[in-house]
């Protein structure tokens, strides 16, 4: 029997230590369920259905579906192995700027799974869900107190959905006044969701350039304002990690022009307990519960994006919303029942992301007023500590100035090294860190936006800072190859994204694409 050699591909790929299996110690290659499962197999034992006369008529399914099944131990192992190919906040610092990857307390998970929250139906009688409505009222009270706003729409399913909620309310308010306004002002540093939301509502987008320090000046806003402007969408603190110093004057100018002020609240986590959006003159703002109040992101959702409103926009808040009826709480679920109000409509079936409301409430009760302010302060302190520790080896697009919860670097310090922002990020992966947000915001060349959050200890920050210093120095010292080849130690090396987009393979298929084409 001849000794089996590692395949050519494996030899080439695994450097000095090729393996026969392609596995690398604890990193085990895992095929797709479609390659290992069997449509006849099942990991769920179900009883025989009682004999009944079918009421499916002519529409009963006859064609096979092609879904594979796995016995329970196979399924556990499959998803366990997949899980081990992911970075996670529970593994280490996850410095994605603007994404706010903070600790997700497990007590919150436990609370969301109480049957009294997790096992109740959105359409069961209101008399049987008074505790759920109490929780929604409690969340409303905390959010309005923390923001200084008049009311809240809880139903938006995520931040961008909240933007749609707030901007639709603004549109409804203008419509109500008989005003035709066609433009929304958006700074160039804005999240892509802002212009996309404005466009969805039929608005044209007028871009406002940042001034030299990365913030928006009241003069620039005034110059862009006019009778055609419906609203400004401004993120504060902005996506460069800077507090918009002119915000109160901007709000005044916007209101003087008959427009409304939408604040993108993605970065509210920097200022909780430090200032209140209501005091800044904001008319509405979405709150990413999954960022500021730590409901887990789960690989890209679910999110939750309640929107707080000023008194001026309350009449237009969408259904459903809460009301009190004597000793009972009720939900107003139809526009006809909304006395004295003019709700702009409905954004989703049912009442919003209740599972996220419970988690956010557990987070808020745990922190309390003092803990939430401390969390904001620590988040800002951590970001500034990183800034102060890296300012001599990395470069900042708007000079070295105090930042809020995130610090923005650009690729100026890599000039002439041949190393790009992307290469730098990929080298961080080999060092055991998730990269920061890269190439966003667009106002910085080769942007690197670092948000450590309050969840990091000083020791963790010091380790991270040490790695970034080493990498910055290695790049400058000409060790370009390290960066171009990176990552070498991750479950995969750099993936070919161009090929994925040019020859899209978006699902598994029993037939090879080449054969299918014949």
């Amino acid at each position, binding site marked *: 029997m001849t000794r089996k050699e590692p395949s050519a591909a494996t030899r080439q790929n695994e450097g000095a230590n090729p393996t026969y299996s392609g596995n690398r110690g604890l990193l085990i290659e895992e095929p797709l*369920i479609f390659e290992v499962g069997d449509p006849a197999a099942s990991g769920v034992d179900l009883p025989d259905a009682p004999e009944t006369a079918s009421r499916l008529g002519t529409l009963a399914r006859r064609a096979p579906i092609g879904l594979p099944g796995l016995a329970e131990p196979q399924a556990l192992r499959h998803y366990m192995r997949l899980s081990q190919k992911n970075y996670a906040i529970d*593994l280490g610092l996850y410095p994605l700027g603007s994404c706010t990857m903070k600790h997700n307390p497990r*007590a919150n998970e436990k609370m969301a799974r109480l049957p009294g929250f997790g096992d109740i*139906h959105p359409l069961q009688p209101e008399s049987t869900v008074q505790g759920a409505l109490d929780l929604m009222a409690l969340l409303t009270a905390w959010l309005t107190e923390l923001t200084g706003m008049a009311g809240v729409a809880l139903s938006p399913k995520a931040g961008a959905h909240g933007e749609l909620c707030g901007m639709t309310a603004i549109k409804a308010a203008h419509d109500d006044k008989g005003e035709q306004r066609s433009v929304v002002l958006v700074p160039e540093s804005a999240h892509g969701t802002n212009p996309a939301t404005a466009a969805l509502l039929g608005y044209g987008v007028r871009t406002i350039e940042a001034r030299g320090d990365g913030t928006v000046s009241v003069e620039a806003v005034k110059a862009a304002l006019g009778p055609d402007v419906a609203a400004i969408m401004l993120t504060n603190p902005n996506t460069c990690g800077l507090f918009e110093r002119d915000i109160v004057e901007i709000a005044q100018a916007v209101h003087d022009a008959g427009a409304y002020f939408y604040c993108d609240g993605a970065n509210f986590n920097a200022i909780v307990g430090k*200032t209140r959006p209501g005091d800044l003159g904001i008319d509405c703002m979405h709150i990413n519960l999954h960022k500021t109040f730590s409901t887990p992101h789960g690989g890209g959702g679910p999110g939750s994006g309640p929107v707080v409103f000023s008194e001026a926009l309350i009449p237009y808040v969408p259904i459903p919303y809460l009301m009190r009826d004597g000793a009972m709480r009720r939900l107003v679920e139809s526009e006809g029942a909304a006395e004295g109000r003019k709700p*702009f409509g409905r954004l989703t079936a049912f009442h919003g992301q209740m*599972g996220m409301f419970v988690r956010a409430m557990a987070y808020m009760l745990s922190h309390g007023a003092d803990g939430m302010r401390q969390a904001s302060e620590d988040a800002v302190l951590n970001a500034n500590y990183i800034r102060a520790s890296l300012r001599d080896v990395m470069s900042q697009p708007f000079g070295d100035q105090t930042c*809020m919860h995130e610090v923005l670097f650009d690729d100026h310090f890599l000039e002439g090294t041949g190393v790009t922002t992307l290469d730098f990020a990929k080298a961080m992966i080999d060092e055991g860190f998730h990269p920061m947000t890269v190439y966003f915001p667009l106002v910085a060349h080769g942007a690197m936006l670092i948000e450590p959050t309050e969840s990091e200890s000083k020791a963790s920050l010091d380790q991270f800072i040490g790695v970034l210093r080493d990498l910055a120095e290695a790049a400058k010292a000409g060790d370009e190859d390290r960066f171009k080849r990176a990552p070498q130690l991750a479950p995969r090396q750099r993936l070919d994204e161009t090929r994925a987009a040019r020859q899209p393979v978006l699902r598994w298929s029993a037939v090879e694409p080449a054969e299918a084409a014949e």
Partner: protein
Amino acid sequence: MRYLPLSGADRQAMLARIGAASIDELFEDIPENVRMGGLPNLPLHAGELDVERQLSKLASKNLPASSLPFFVGCGAYKHHIPASVDHLIQRSEFLTSYTPYQPEIAQGTLQYLFEFQTQVALLTGMEVANASMYDGSTACGEAVLMAHRITRRSKAVLAGGLHPHYRAVVETLSLHSGHGVTALEPIPNSGSDEIISAIDDETSCVVVQMPDYFGGLHDLAPIAAAAHERGALLIAVITEVISLGALKSPGDMGADIVVAEGQSLGNGLNFGGPYVGLFATRAKFVRQMPGRICGETVDAAGRRGYVLTLSTREQHIRRERATSNICTNSGLCALAFTIHLSLLGEAGLRRLAELNHASAVGLADALSEIGGVELVTPEFFNEFTLRVPGDGAEIIERLAKKGVLGGVPVARLEPDRPDLHDLVIVAATEVTSKADIAAYRSALAEVLKP
């Protein structure tokens, strides 16, 4: 505070490195007159035990579905979820990861999304699916906008059997984005003719729910043919995804876009969210599809791997020219869906669907024996509509007092249609026992006793 690792000494040392005398110095960009002097007027921090007590007290005021005979559906369904589903989705590597922007260290998320997309495409009988939407209703709203883009027309026809909340979501989006909607009357058992006659040359799409929200079944094929003849698309909506184990797929009946609420697989009731929206379509429309999409590729060493792809459709690249403003998907709920479906497999899903159907048939037979109660939907899957002698909402409330959550009165969803207020929509699933059916029958008989 247990979640904050910095000590006082750490903070001092860090401020010293920054060169700030105090933490307040870092907040000096906030204008002084709007800086908060004191703390927000809210309670101070609390220990885990205390928080558990406070929240458990609220939870205990609610009646969970598992605690009594339960027949509420209408877009969210009570099913049994295998324990391993919830165990796996709480793995830190799944629970506490972000959108897979760095694919080399997110292959776990990306591979399950690829599996999810394949499962959704197979189930719906379509060629491609995205990596999930917020829920079924928002997926429906986005599907209508997509149909407008594809056909360059702007009028949607909504079948009367579309869930009223879904109808409202489509109307809200359309109204404020300058599109038109023709919503047909919500009448149980209305046939295809009415839908077909509403299609004209301005129609971009016809939106038909199957089973409809009364529980009734429709052959989509003639509607698809009529829509296609006029250059319009057929959007099929499914709120009970288990039904696809027993019914012809919308793809087989000619649908162009299929949207569904995926909650029934892997996800609890959660009082309405988070859920998971499914979105599938034909390959030729993929570049008009909203949402994240995962695709297969290779790494620098030639090994198979997965990335988010076709992102030139999306807001972070295209900004105001994006197909949608959507940024978040429903990743963790999609994972729960995909694990549950991998456990079931085709054989398990079909069996589960049979059980659901048999439960509903048994229940419908038992309840329609009661004098004055009439089964309105002769063909159904696991949900049907009853006409009751009296006000449906009041009867449901009285049943609740007797410990039976008997379904959804149409009055709750259509308050402005008094002609429908004697209808209640009743669901049964694999969790419905014979004892539950008997309890419902006797409670309803008692409530209706003159």
